[in-house]
């Protein structure tokens, strides 16, 4: 599908010496760059995942829970007032925000949780940025009766404190990480340290299309359902494919899920929106693909992809108003789609995202997560430049309930007024 090199494993190589492997490669990106201690676990995971993928009973259980527990299929909603106000393309919202736990993250957490149970692993660990993946994982662990430990940067715990409480209420242990910038990257490192230490008993539910093979492939597969549904829905409602699809990109899981079934439909533009933060200097944003101040290919946390870093190869600090986009690297499949030009990547600033929250709330009565608001911000710019019969699909990856604390600090709301605070 889509030109991606799906997870092929090369056998260990002979005394003649190994060559560059085809392990989970997306073009030149991806691969497996981890401490040796994890290799047996990654191989075990890959084998178990490949078996589960072919197992009709596993797939039926997953599909059943996605439907009856999570609320799939999610609606594809024509945002009429927003479209009319912007005066261009017809905007459709893929309502992943309506899923149980409030974001697309549950698609993957549920899939991996069922896989963990199948593998007989009772202890689950996860990292989380905005807390949505942590909440989804805590939820799945409650559902399946498994122990759950979630690593979260202390900065993120502060700005997403409602989600911290939610995870704890669901029975998960939330462990704060104070290293580095105390955000998503640091939470992933700490989760990997836990996994290295407890690898014999523990399953790591990684929350984005990142990390060592097979994670980027597996996480994408669990989110493919987004574009499978959307394709059918837009054909039913409009009788044609969308002109463009817009999704926010942190690690890139919702975007790859929303793009995947359209990769071979070359007329459908695919647009990923990164966090433009508060400026283009390194440290002020998380726009890995930015032409100025962006990333270069490198290895972070198990995979080869674009990485924000200094010229000595030290990983850069990042900033975004949205914890879920605040990450120095990006899923390797996006790196491939970027280089090939199949998808284009742009960025929305903190202020643009905050304004987009207000716009969507007041035109449609829908409160997007700050992450998803980056995609809405791009749609607000793009739609007026498009024709009336063009269709612009926005993947609304999550809802904004978790962001009330940040929004009340960043926005001045009074009566009919709502402005970003200076």
């Amino acid at each position, binding site marked *: 599908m889509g030109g991606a090199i799906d997870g092929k494993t090369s056998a260990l*190589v002979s005394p003649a010496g190994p060559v560059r*492997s085809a392990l989970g490669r997306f073009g030149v990106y991806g691969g*497996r760059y981890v401490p*040796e201690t994890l*290799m047996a676990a990654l191989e075990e995971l890959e084998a178990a995942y490949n078996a589960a993928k072919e197992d009709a009973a596993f797939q039926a259980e997953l599909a059943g829970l996605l439907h009856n527990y999570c609320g799939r299929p999610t609606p594809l909603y024509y945002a009429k007032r927003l479209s009319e106000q912007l005066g261009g393309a017809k905007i459709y919202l893929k309502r992943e925000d309506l899923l149980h736990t409030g974001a697309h993250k549950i698609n993957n957490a549920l899939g991996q949780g069922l896989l963990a149970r199948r593998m007989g692993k009772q202890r689950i660990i996860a990292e989380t940025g905005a807390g949505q993946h942590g909440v989804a994982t805590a939820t799945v662990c409650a559902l399946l009766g498994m122990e759950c430990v979630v690593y979260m940067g202390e900065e993120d715990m502060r700005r997403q404190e409602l989600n911290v409480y939610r995870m704890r209420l669901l029975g998960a242990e939330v462990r704060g990480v104070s290293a*580095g910038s105390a955000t998503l990257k640091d939470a992933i490192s700490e989760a990997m340290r836990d996994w290295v230490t407890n690898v014999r008993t523990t399953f790591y539910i990684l929350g984005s299309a990142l990390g060592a093979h097979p994670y980027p492939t597996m996480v994408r597969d669990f989110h493919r359902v987004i574009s499978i549904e959307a394709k059918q829905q837009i054909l039913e409602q409009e009788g044609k494919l969308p002109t463009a699809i817009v999704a926010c990109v942190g690690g890139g899981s919702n975007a790859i899920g929303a793009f995947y079934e359209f990769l071979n439909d070359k007329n459908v533009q695919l647009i990923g929106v990164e966090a433009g933060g508060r400026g283009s200097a390194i440290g002020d944003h998380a726009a890995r693909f930015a032409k100025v101040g962006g990333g*270069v290919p490198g290895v972070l*946390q198990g995979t080869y992809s674009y990485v924000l870093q200094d010229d*000595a*190869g030290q990983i850069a600090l990042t900033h975004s108003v949205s914890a879920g986009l605040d990450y120095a690297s990006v899923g390797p499949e996006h790196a491939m789609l970027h280089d090939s030009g199949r998808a284009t990547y742009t960025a929305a600033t903190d202020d643009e995202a905050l304004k987009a929250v207000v716009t969507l709330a007041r035109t449609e009565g829908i409160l997007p997560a700050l992450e998803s608001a980056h995609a809405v911000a791009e749609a607000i710019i793009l739609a007026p430049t498009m024709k009336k019969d063009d269709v612009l699909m926005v993947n609304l990856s999550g809802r904004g309930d978790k962001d009330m604390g940040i929004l009340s600090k960043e926005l001045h709301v009074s009566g009919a007024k709502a402005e970003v605070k200076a």
Partner: protein
Amino acid sequence: MAIKFDKKPGLVIYLTAGDPDLATTRDIAIAAIDNGADVIELGVPFSDPLADGPVIQRASERAVAKGTRLTDVLGIAKEIRAARPEAGLILFSYLNPVVRMGMKEFAAKAAEAGADGVLLTDMIVEEAGEYLEAMQANKLAPVFLAAPTSPDVRLKAIAENSKGFVYAISRVGITGTQSSLTSDASEIVGRLKRFTTLPIAVGFGVSNAEHVKAVGEFADAAVIGSAIVQLIEKTEPKEAAAAVGRFVAGLRA
């Protein structure tokens, strides 16, 4: 200029370069060699050391904050080599600083600095094609890590692709000190010996003379990292070389 372990057990000493500063790291390395270290592992500090426990994390953070770069580490490698031509010298790094410099350029510069070999924490044998070519072209020894969780098929590939020595990880976990060695350590060395005649060094949690002695009963060398880095952390910079020298001298006592 070679990796050899004349006395049993051999001693491999890990240092985070640039902690507390580059000149002190150089002086510590020389003191360690003069007090019995066979091989120095010169660690390139990295912003995100995901295989390391709190001690080496803190050292890396301090060294990165001071602006220590891979180029600087190559610089003190050269100084250590000039001062002690006979000692073994390994560059120890996470992959990204090396990728950023370029694998070929890194290998050429490492050889020019007089290093004997390289250990990349997050490089597994399957991904090592370009790395192995660069090592071979510059007559450097690639040292791979072997883990207690590695099945025999992996240990075989690790042993066959390593030169100089094989680094056996003593336990399932990250770096850091511990009170006693686990049975994982002797088990993995036993399995590795079936695939190689190279010396086998055991590291992760090897912290004191008692551990070194225990390692000596089933392996060729012991790697001491966090215990030394912790000692450096607790010691005034100008006292650090002497303190590490005394500590290393006591390891084979």
